[in-house]
């Protein structure tokens, strides 16, 4: 009985410490870039009937942490990528300075639109916990072709 109580107390302490760290420790990101890459051979794959999705319909960015959308065309042909035409080997870096929802026309999507949600910097402890939790989930479900 005492062993079980001690285990519960330990688990609660660990959870509390994790929450305290998640809420109060400053957030550091290695880069403010959210990068999407059109890999080499994408056009050829599309021509052969392969449905290649690279840019999601919705992209979520956070001011001060990850607020620069970077698109890279590594394919051999020009591509309409997000809002713009990109030549082979070209990159496009779009910084965001205001939290808002941005709609871009994007012919790469079936809907013809791409939405970028830019959220404010997570200033409160709860916002920091949510941001970290989302980052963790995003890392776990990272699709191939993005980095």
């Amino acid at each position: 009985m005492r062993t079980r109580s001690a285990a519960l107390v330990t688990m609660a302490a660990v959870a509390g410490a994790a929450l305290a760290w998640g809420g109060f420790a400053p957030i550091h990101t290695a880069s403010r870039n959210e990068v999407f890459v059109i890999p080499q051979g994408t056009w050829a794959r599309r021509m052969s009937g392969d449905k290649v999705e690279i840019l999601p319909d919705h992209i979520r960015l956070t001011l001060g942490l990850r607020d620069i959308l970077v698109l890279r065309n590594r394919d051999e042909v020009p591509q309409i990528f997000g809002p713009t035409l990109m030549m082979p080997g070209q990159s496009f870096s779009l910084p965001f300075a205001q939290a808002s929802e941005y709609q871009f026309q994007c012919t790469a999507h079936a809907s013809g639109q791409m939405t970028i949600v830019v959220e404010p910097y997570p200033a409160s402890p709860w916002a920091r916990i949510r941001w970290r939790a989302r980052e963790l989930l995003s890392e776990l479900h990272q699709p191939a072709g993005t980095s």
Partner: protein
Amino acid sequence: MSASRFAVATLSLMTAVAAGAAAAPAFKAGLFDPPRQAPDFSLQGTDGHELRMSHYRGKVVLLAFGYSSCTAVCPVTLATLAAARRELGPAAADVQVLYVTVDPERDVPARLRAFLHNFDASFVGGTGTAQQLAGVRKDYGISAQKLVTRDGYAYSHSSFTYLIDRGGRIRALMPYGHSPGDYVNDLRILLQE
């Protein structure tokens, strides 16, 4: 050189480098790397001359696409560009706004000129045949979709503005909705190059 002089010189150099790094200008628009040469085109200009992109080498060009019957996007964009030019003052003489129509049916030169002059008399518009304009849009990655409305038709079109440097290279793309101040920031960077 004495040790103290060397230390002072080194410190000064480091301070200058740090100040330079801190003052490195940052664009508000999205940047292309590497920038590509803006494709040339030949259209009918609203100033009575042939409109060619290559004629504007030496100037910084703001290139936008739209149509004079646009009620949502184009008036905002053109008013923003006009405000940016006013804010630039005399330096605006080296900035040229070009506006290429996506609606050749209605945007004959006189109508397009009158529309543009509501914002700034220096703006130059371009029109041409549907085929010519489609070619220009393809070269610049511009979308324009005709939509039937109760009153006739309208266009859903790309709403961003290209920033083209003095050498005729497409350097940046400013999405719709940015302030005149953001344009002024980027134009000053390009004008100083």
